[in-house]
């Protein structure tokens, strides 16, 4: 199988920010985003608001966990410009396919560049940020935390990019409907996220139930006779075929090396290291 890589948009978003902010300060946001400190995170067209849990610090007389309000406003792209960009996107099957699968096309910046625009933040002018914390530096830990949260969402919701730059879902759908391929894409926006399915037991739990009215024969031998021949299986022609069906670098795979290759290796080791049981 041919190898391929995946672009991590969240990472590129952070890298873009690093061009015009203090990387060290920015990094401090990572633990904020991961530690679940960002509450009430909300993204509406061109603006992000959130409440962030601050830290208790008796030295500064902070004895109770403070809550800070953060807002980030991003310079929007004008409707007219958006129209051009969307036309461009909807004219390439590869872009539409990727967006249909909730991925950002790798070369999407090219489209923006054609119209003299940038999709990712380009300069500090693009951002107007505010935080209610006493820290005067920008970005403060709280703003940086929200940046990281945005970054992680970008990895599996490409449409966020459009919204960040001022194009509402409705407006995007309207624009997309102008081309045949775009129409196909606009329907995708309707799909909803899956809710976690809770299970009651780790392994399937056998249920205890009242006995069937079985005859002696059924008790000892089962309803049907065992097959005469023993079932056997041969190794597949192509390995790891099950996980190959969704391509490499699935969203849960946070590494730069190939998931498919790692799984091929794992399957192979399970087989070769259990030769004694005949697999």
């Amino acid at each position, binding site marked *: 199988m*041919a190898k*391929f890589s995946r672009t991590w948009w969240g990472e590129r978003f952070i890298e873009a920010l690093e061009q015009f902010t203090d990387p060290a300060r920015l990094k401090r946001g990572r633990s904020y985003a991961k530690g*679940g400190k960002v509450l009430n995170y909300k993204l509406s067209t061109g603006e992000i608001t959130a409440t962030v849990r601050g830290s208790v610090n008796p030295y500064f007389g902070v004895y109770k966990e403070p809550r800070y309000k953060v807002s980030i406003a991003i310079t929007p792209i004008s409707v007219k410009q958006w129209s051009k960009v969307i036309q461009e996107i909807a*004219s390439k*099957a*590869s872009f539409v*396919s990727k967006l249909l*699968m909730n991925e950002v096309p790798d070369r999407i910046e090219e489209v923006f560049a054609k119209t003299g625009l940038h999709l990712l933040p380009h300069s500090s002018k693009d951002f107007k940020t505010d935080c209610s914390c006493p820290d005067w530096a920008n970005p403060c830990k709280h703003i940086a935390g929200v940046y990281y949260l945005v970054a992680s969402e970008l990895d*599996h919701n490409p449409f966020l990019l459009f919204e960040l730059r001022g194009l509402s879902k409705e407006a995007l759908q309207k624009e997309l409907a102008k081309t045949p*391929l775009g129409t*196909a894409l606009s*329907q995708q926006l309707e799909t909803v996220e*899956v809710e*976690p399915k*809770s*299970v009651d*037991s*780790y*392994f*399937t*739990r056998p*249920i*205890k139930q009242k*006995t069937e009215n*079985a005859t*002696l*024969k059924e*008790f*000892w031998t089962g*309803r*049907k006779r*065992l097959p005469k021949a*023993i*079932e*056997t299986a041969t*190794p597949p*022609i*192509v390995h790891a*075929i*099950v996980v190959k*069906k*969704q*391509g490499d670098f699935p*969203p*849960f*795979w*946070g590494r730069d090396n190939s*998931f498919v290759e790692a*799984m091929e*290796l*794992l*399957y192979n*080791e*399970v*087989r070769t*290291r*259990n030769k004694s*049981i*005949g*697999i």
Partner: protein
Amino acid sequence: MHIVHGTWIPEDRETFIQKGAFWLWVEKLPESLPEKQKTPKHPYALSPKDLKEFLTKELQIETLDKRHDPFAIRYFFLPSHNKMPLPSPEAMRYAAFEEPEEFELSQWEVPCFELQNVIKKLQHINFICLTNPLSFQPAADLLFWYHYTRSFREILIKELYIPGLKYHAAAARPARKGKMKNTEEFAVYPCWEIVAEKYDEKIKKYCNHMPLVCTAGFETPAAKQTEFHDREGLLRHFSECLLQEIITETKFTQKLDNQIKDTLVHYCAYPTNMLQAPMTNQDGLILYKKWASWKEKLTVASSDAAFTLGFRLIEARSNNVDYWVVEFMAASKNDPSMQISLSEYWALGPQGKRDQEKHFGADFQKKLLLNMGFAARIYPKIWDGLETQEPGGFVLNLNEAFAFLRETSWVLEDAGYRVIVPSWWTPQGRRRAKIRLKSSQSDAKPAAGGGPGKGHMSLESVIQYSYELSIGDEQVSHEEWQELVNAKAPLVLFRGQWIELDRDKMEEMLEFWEKHESEQQGLTFQQLLKMEADNSESIVFDYDDALAGMMDKLRDKSRFELVDEPAAFTGTLRPYQRRGVSWLDYLEQIGLNPCLADDMGLGKTVQVIALLAREQESAEAVLPTLLIAPTSVLGNWEREVQRFAPALKTFIHHGPKRTQDKKEFHEACANNNLIITSFALARRDEKLLNAMKWQRIIVDEAQNIKNPDTAQTRAIGKLQADFRLALTGTPIENRLMDLWSIFNFLNPGYLGKQAWFKKFFEIPIQRDNSIVQSEALKKLVEPFILRRVKTDKSVIADLPDKVEHKQYCNLTKEQASLYEAVVQEVNREIDKTEGIQRKGLMLATLMKLKQICNHPVQFLQDGSAFTEERSHKLKRLTEMVEEVTENDESLLVFSQFKEIGDALQQYFRQTMHCNTYFIHGGTPRHKREQFIEAFQDEDSEPSVFVLSLKAGGVGITLTRANHVFHFDRWWNPAVEEQATDRAFRIGQKKNVFIHKFITIGTLEERIDAMLEEKKSLSSSIIGADESWLTDLDNKTFKNLIQLSKEAVLEE
């Protein structure tokens, strides 16, 4: 007899992670069964001490476990009666135990052993049981788990599992005072998940096979109610635990660990910590959501479209070998012939596109792009084709095209896409590199049109041939071949067509060719078959027309031209029997010794007789043939030869008066065509038989030489003959050592030495279920074995619905002397009596003589042993019943005597351990119905139904049987017919075989002859009973009952 049981028992505690273990226990019935059990201890289960000894000594299982004690008590609900558990059916077969009418389920304490490494150990136990069938056997519950674990390996072999996560929303804890919880409580655990539709099918299928007893085991005693585990839940629980255990206990390499570090896959491979402390934070939830959406698409991707996206690979032309085009296409799911290439589709106008949507769905474009995106995830090259508004396809270079053919096409196809590849890549169209054998002399061809006996190759005959290298059907020179091997590309254009080259194989072939090219000595056919099988992995052999014709005939036996029925053969061969005779004749001609393994009832005997008769027509002098058979069928062979080829001079070498003088024996042989002897004498008279040179040795019931180490088998192997022939009615391919032994007689050396055979075939096939070895062996032996079964289409067409066959047998010495005594007494008495008294004497005599012909015990009624040594009839019946049940068929046995029915039922149960039922006049109606229902159940083991002629005559349907035996005769054919029709009723889909036992040289044979003559007479003349026989005059009656000399046969 020890019966080994075992099942999976889940832990009793219903914690979130509920584990389980596999527990073994062993049942052994004591000589005499105790009356009542006062404690809940299972009385027939081995105690922990005995269990330990049995496991170590007999099953060779290590019982020492440093971590914990593997022995424990487990609690089973078992069918019980009168405060005693009932023995399992396997145990019951070895005990005189009457099944009670009713039973209840009670819980018993059973000492158990915890089995680790279940898949391997079950395989081990099963193999040991197979090789020691007389001392212990697995119970149906253990066999079930063995079968299931074998089948379950498919999940591991075919890689049908993925790393996963389980999300568990914890029950909401009461909120603490003053604190509001605004986040949900949950835990996320790493796991392994099976993803395959096949798995669900497998579970469903095996639930139907699972004995209820598998669900009856518990870790702790039940409080009150009798509750079992549900079958499906238990099977899934077992499978999931097993998968988890196997994967997490695999010692992964450092290399893999590095590749999966800090990922979900690592959590799943080393789950111990996380199973104790699962993820409970947002990161865990996000990881779960990402995984869940991935998994959902993995299983449902693209299944809701009305069309299938397809890829067609168009091969490159010779002037541009790096220009291979993959064309996108769509095919309707409803009508797969409805296809369109996407370039064509985009070129359509709006109306044209709308027309297409009728076939491919209204949202065709969206689904198309989505599907292409999914496909591109599998195969990123597809993106190349999507850099446009109207994607039509993309281009590959030679290496990419090869990779596409080799791998990508399989993945895409498996993911539900359609892939069309050039015809030269398909198995039918593929041209392979091979070594071609060209026969250079015409003597490889069997003599065309020659009379029988002519054109026989002796064993030393060889085929002269030369080797050629070839691709497809074209010969390739040594240089050209070398050039192809040296070419770097995996696909090459060879004489205008693309082919794939396997260089390693081609090099091996070249090496073989260089080594053998100059050889000129030639090969026998046997060597040729062996060479082909030995090299089958690396070398493909191809034959020129003459050789190919011969090979095809050997592999496809339906291609034999029918030989003419020999003039000396007075019967009529059915078409498949003529094919059989042709096959036997042909194999002998090319120097191979065959094994005729047709199903019982298809007429192996007549085919052999026809072969012998055919040989007699030959102009050349033919040496006599020696036939070795079980004593119980010697008389039958003689009778059949008399009937079908009276010109064939035959004598039986048997009995205490047989000649031991070499010269005399030599003369006797010279004056006969066929000499028949028993297995026992083949050993005892080894020297006498060995001094002769035979045309052919025939071994009937060849399973008698299945044990290669016995003196008997060795003695038979030493006999000198041009040809050898083995006959058997059981499928010998299934017992490999038997197969080896029979082949060692037929074609010594062909299957190698015994130890070699065990190592390369028996263990890999029977213990490890190796398909490769099994196929290899099949290829080796197939040309030598002709086995047709009753259900073969070609056979059914030739068979009447009812096939009647008379089975002749002799009297033992004991039977004969009893018979003689009765006859002499009657001869004295009969002239003195008259009227009613005379009739009474005649009827009583007939009764006594019939009893003697059945078995001495029946006549003596002295409670002595009902053994087969005392009656050839019983011996032959037992052999035949064994053969029938081994072929998975059921049968009826009729007798007019209740005491014989009783004895037979007992006998079959105890010696053959098969299901046996018996009904007679006194059987209560509900019992009768119960027996019939059990017998008719297609899902039960093959069974024997014994019926008394009167009780079983009417109103019963037993269509599961396709063999009917009449153990003794009723002297009215209509009554016998009526009985036979129990099996031959509406609903009978199989041919029915009727076997009527006739004792040679006794009243049975004479009355049979009379009945044959009177067949045309209506039943009114013969009458409903035997009283018509009393109308005979004294002289005729005496003639009727007298014993002729040929009747007796002693060991």
